[in-house]
């Protein structure tokens, strides 16, 4: 009779568990704002210790809570941006692949243009053009990331178009838009989903970068990038925890979602049609 029970999680379950944990951060921005984030000047610049695992900042605010709030905000922004990019990419991808011809040629040209510009430059330009801030960050990330997904979706669309059931639908007199909605879309959604999950950590990282440069979220919305920008000033005075710990947390979240995205990509493969009749 053993008194200890071990929870045996296999790799998949661990990954999912971690992701869910990270997603719960989405709520921290709302919930934790009720915690005191008021300055407590008595405990300024405390190094990491038991009561403040991430230390405190120049106003005595607990860094762990600040980091969690920041991540929550960044996650939300990243999610919105990734979502917009995915929707746009899917629509363009299907629209481009479904008929071919001039529309396809134009859209492919557009995708190529976007993808040939250096990422960071594009992000900065777009954010600046819209006036920075939350709007700017979301717009910049979405607008610079949709082409990659659009390409993948376009390829999938072209492939699905060749399948017998699509040709059969044409033989039943169905219009291209009917086929796009009823046949292509369901077959393309898994890849779109994978694309979204992979896009999301990208979006996070870019948003943090933009905010760090001052072109993303404004300073009063404490996203991680803003946090890091503020903390940079204090590195020289040896307060390493102000930058390192939030930075590592951001990195960890990004890696977890990136890993999930790759696992999903592996699971769905590049062909979502399985031949179950070979099983018998």
């Amino acid at each position, binding site marked *: 009779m053993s008194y200890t029970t071990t929870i045996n999680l296999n790799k998949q379950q661990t990954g999912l568990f971690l992701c869910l944990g990270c997603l719960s951060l989405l709520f921290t921005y709302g919930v934790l704002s009720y915690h005191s984030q008021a300055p407590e000047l008595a405990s300024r610049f405390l190094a990491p210790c038991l009561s403040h695992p991430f230390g405190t900042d120049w106003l005595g605010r607990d860094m762990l809570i600040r980091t969690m709030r920041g991540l929550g905000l960044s996650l939300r922004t990243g999610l919105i941006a990734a979502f917009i990019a995915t929707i746009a990419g899917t629509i363009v991808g299907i629209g481009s692949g479904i008929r071919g011809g001039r529309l396809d040629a134009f859209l492919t040209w557009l995708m190529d243009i976007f993808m040939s510009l250096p990422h960071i430059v594009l992000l900065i330009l777009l954010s600046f053009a819209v006036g920075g801030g939350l709007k700017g960050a979301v717009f910049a990330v979405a607008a610079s990331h949709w082409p990659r997904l659009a390409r993948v979706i376009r390829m999938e669309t072209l492939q699905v178009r060749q399948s017998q*059931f699509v040709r*059969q*639908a044409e*033989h*039943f*007199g*169905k219009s291209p838009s009917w086929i796009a909605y009823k046949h292509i879309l369901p077959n393309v959604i898994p890849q779109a989903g994978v694309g979204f999950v992979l896009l999301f950590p990208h979006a996070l990282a870019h948003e943090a970068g933009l905010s760090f440069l001052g072109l993303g979220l404004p300073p009063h919305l404490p996203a991680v990038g803003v946090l890091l920008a503020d903390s940079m000033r204090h590195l020289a005075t040896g307060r390493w925890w102000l930058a390192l710990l939030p930075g590592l947390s951001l990195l960890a979240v990004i890696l977890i979602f990136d890993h999930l995205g790759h696992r999903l990509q592996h699971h769905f493969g590049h062909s979502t049609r399985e031949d179950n*009749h070979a099983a018998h």
Partner: protein
Amino acid sequence: MLQSNNISFRYGANHPWIVKNGCFNLKKGSIVGMYGHSGTGKTTFSRILSGYLQPCEGTITCDRQPFPHSGFRPVQLVFQNPVEAMNPYWTMEQILTEASPLDDNILDLLEIPKKWLARRPSELSGGELQRIALARVFNRNIHYIIADEITANLDAISQASIWKVFSEYARSENIGVLAISHDLALLEKVCDQTIHFSEISPSPGDS
């Protein structure tokens, strides 16, 4: 009548002719069997006759009109592997209603129980899917059906019962059927007349 007039086809200028000057007529209400060696072009011919491939030379006329290239085609093809012509994400109900609204008589005729309607292609066996594929083309707007080895992967009982229903339906609804198979005994039992592919297209296939 579905007519192919001097159809010729090959995959490219450097490829051999797969079909050359193929002439074939299919009357409504008749069931014609076509047999021949594997790989000689029967499948290619069936694709051309049903509109999935364009012939390089020659024309196809359907009821004295040129073969329609848009809209609901009156000539449909049933494949050897029914799974290929079904969207893996769709339910049987969606697959059946794609062509026309559900007809209970047709479902009864092909012994398709209601419980299959909610299933996906991966959940049914080959024989069951072939019945659905046939139900889809048993339709007032379809006048010619080309059956390309439709029972080649099925056991003897499914084969016999499917062909019985198919031939009865074809005769009663005056549908022209071209049945392609390598099983001569099957064709002789089911068809009014049987021809060898070389009689249509006297070119050497690869055998």
